[in-house]
């Protein structure tokens, strides 16, 4: 569609050939693709570590690995999943979809885009290489509490710190790019309140990233200084405080967990209306709810620290502030359910993942509320209940939303249709796997099993074995996911420009696969029928 619309400079049209296409590309679709593949590779690597963890926990006693290595596995699993799998996947989706959703020809800052992707493989290569270093990989948990990560850290901690610096730089660049794209590159007529929710949620996420990634960089820099330059930020002997570490970390960390879920809200808000064949209920309330969640996420961090000895008033404040988040979150869940209500729903794979997201994410929200009750958290803190909580919000939450997005937009990206039967098989295996894996962990936690341990008391044996079986099932199903995606790309049936009847949005107005350059001439939004949002 684009070839006819402009008159000069045709030389750049196809992508370059060979490896240089990927090395030098400034095309948002290429970069989006690389982010997504990178994220999938990290998902498999982090998943492998998780398999080691679940294999060790299959039975009580020490079977496969030593406790030191077990700790390295839990640490690396968490770090790689958070920073390597979930975050880059959302950035990849943003790259692919935001320009197409707002009618822009590319991202605002294409060269920075290239840089922000290409520094990532170096960061993670550095992080992964610590596994082979003397003293082993970081073993202090993904939350790297001082003094475990300073005084008692393995020498490889310095590499960990630099890797985090690079990841932070990459995220900040990516976020700036997304803000610039959304603020400046919308096609005429694409007002802010007409933007698809995925774009809105990413705009807000990008602001969160710009605000808190420097805090992460700051806290690892303080560690670096404590370790190598004799400062004592976190060292009580020198006048510092390990509790300070936790405050600074969670001031980053809680907004970070929302960074990993807000774009998921956007994806689900695109998919549910498409398969319910109804407009999204309460568009503007979704926007305001997202913004209030983002705001609240800055004032709840100490709910991770109820047990460190906070004064009574502090406990109360952080408890109520945390519970307040349930309100805008509830608004969202209500809107999704209402969108489905009396819709003419069909359940293709993206919809299955999206509906499952709504249900299971809500379970994770409820266990979060239980943890938010400060006196109760004294009991649950640092048990498997916390592990169950955050895995419910992150796996059938964030990760399922990414899978939903892949199934939903893969026809647009590749021009091919995935195999619906296989997609459904993948969904059901993942669904069963994830619940068998994480649901029993609630019981383990309530019964008192601590997190991050390689061995446990006998009474926890049954639930751990069930959980491990679920884990292996879930892990294996993701190989099927890989197969489905590859099979689609090489042998899928051609997809229509708009493979989903009910889908809305500019991305469906371009052919499938999306041409290398789209919207070089901005589309006329007012004539695009898909965007008739009946809202004020």
């Amino acid at each position, binding site marked *: 569609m684009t070839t006819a619309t402009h008159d000069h*400079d045709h030389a750049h049209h196809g992508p370059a050939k060979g490896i240089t296409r990927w090395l030098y590309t400034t095309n948002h679709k290429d970069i989006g693709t690389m982010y997504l593949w990178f994220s999938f590779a990290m998902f498999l690597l982090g998943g492998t570590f998780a398999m080691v963890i679940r294999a060790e926990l299959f039975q009580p006693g020490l079977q496969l690995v030593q406790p030191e290595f077990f700790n390295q596995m839990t640490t690396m699993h968490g770090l790689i999943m958070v920073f390597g799998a979930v975050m880059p996947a959302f950035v990849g989706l943003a790259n692919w979809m935001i320009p197409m959703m707002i009618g822009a*020809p590319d991202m605002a800052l*294409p060269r920075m885009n290239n840089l922000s992707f290409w520094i990532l493989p170096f960061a993670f290569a550095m992080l992964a290489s610590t596994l082979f270093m003397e003293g082993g990989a970081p073993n202090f948990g993904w939350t790297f509490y001082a003094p475990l990560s300073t005084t008692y850290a393995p020498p490889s901690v310095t590499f960990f710190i630099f890797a985090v610096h690079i990841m932070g730089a990459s995220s900040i660049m990516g976020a*700036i790019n997304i803000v610039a794209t959304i603020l400046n590159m919308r096609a005429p007529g694409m007002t802010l309140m007409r933007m698809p929710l995925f774009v809105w949620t990413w705009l807000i996420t990008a602001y969160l990233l710009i605000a808190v990634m420097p805090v992460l960089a700051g806290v690892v820099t*303080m560690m670096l200084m404590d370790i190598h330059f*004799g400062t004592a*930020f976190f060292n009580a002997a020198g006048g510092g*405080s390990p509790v300070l570490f936790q*405050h600074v970390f969670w001031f980053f960390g809680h907004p970070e967990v929302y960074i990993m879920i807000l774009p998921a809200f956007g994806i689900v808000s695109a998919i549910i209306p498409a398969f319910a064949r109804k407009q999204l209920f309460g568009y503007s309330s979704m926007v305001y709810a997202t913004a209030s969640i983002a705001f609240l996420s800055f004032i709840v961090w100490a709910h991770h620290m109820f047990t460190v000895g906070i004064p009574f008033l502090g406990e109360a404040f952080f408890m109520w502030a945390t519970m307040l988040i349930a309100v805008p979150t509830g608004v969202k869940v209500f809107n999704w359910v209402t969108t489905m209500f009396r819709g003419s729903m069909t359940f293709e794979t993206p919809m299955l993942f999206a509906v499952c997201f709504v249900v299971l994410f809500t379970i994770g929200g409820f266990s979060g509320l239980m943890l938010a009750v400060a006196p109760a958290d004294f009991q649950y803190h640092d048990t498997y209940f916390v592990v169950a909580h955050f895995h419910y919000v992150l796996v059938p939450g964030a990760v399922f939303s990414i899978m939903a997005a892949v199934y939903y937009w893969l026809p647009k990206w590749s021009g091919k249709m995935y195999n619906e039967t296989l997609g459904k098989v993948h969904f059901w295996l993942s669904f069963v796997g994830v619940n068998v894996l994480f649901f029993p962990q609630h019981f383990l936690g309530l019964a008192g099993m601590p997190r991050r341990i390689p061995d446990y008391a006998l009474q926890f044996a049954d639930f751990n074995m069930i959980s491990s079986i679920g884990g292996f099932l879930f892990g294996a199903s993701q190989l099927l996911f890989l197969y489905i995606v590859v099979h689609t790309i090489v042998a899928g049936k051609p997809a229509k420009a708009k493979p989903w009847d009910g889908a809305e949005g500019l991305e469906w107005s371009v052919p499938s696969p999306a041409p290398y*350059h789209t919207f070089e001439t901005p589309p006329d939004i007012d004539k695009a029928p898909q965007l008739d949002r009946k809202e004020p």
Partner: protein
Amino acid sequence: MSEHRTDTERKSGGHHSVVVKSLLAVVGMLAFVFVGLVPMYNLICEWTGVTGRTTGASEVQNFVVAEDRPIKVQFLATNNADMPWEFRPMVKQVTAKPGELVQVNFYARNKTRRDMTAQAIPSLSPFESTPYFHKTECFCFNQQPLAAGEDVEMGLVFQIDPDLPDWVRTISLSYTLYDITEQQEVASAKP
């Protein structure tokens, strides 16, 4: 492709301003962490006494001694992780009346064959009593070097403010002793 001029790029002058503002925000947040959050944390701890960390020396004050209100003051001494010294209070507990000056001693001995330097870090419980517990002299104000095998009696003089909340009957003062020999050698750590 940058030579393309389409309608949508007409706002690209705006990119510059987005980038500049965002970078300012990034630098601002970094600065906030180092010169905002950290001092703020220390100030809040000092004001509220949350961590139970008593700070600097106070002057001896002329309080009216509250004869009818004996407060039990208990002393604890702990060695941090690898600290090999012997370290203990010479009395485990005293009864102090608010307003009076009380002196106690702690004993430390360097059991090793090398010269070492230690730093004691105090913590008070319940933390609400921190602002009312005035130390006029304390070994924790200074680093304590001890040659191999040497020992020392270290003094603490304190005064409890009669404004101490009524519900406080017992105060526990604990000291953790840290080995700071290495930090001493690397740089002079600021206590």
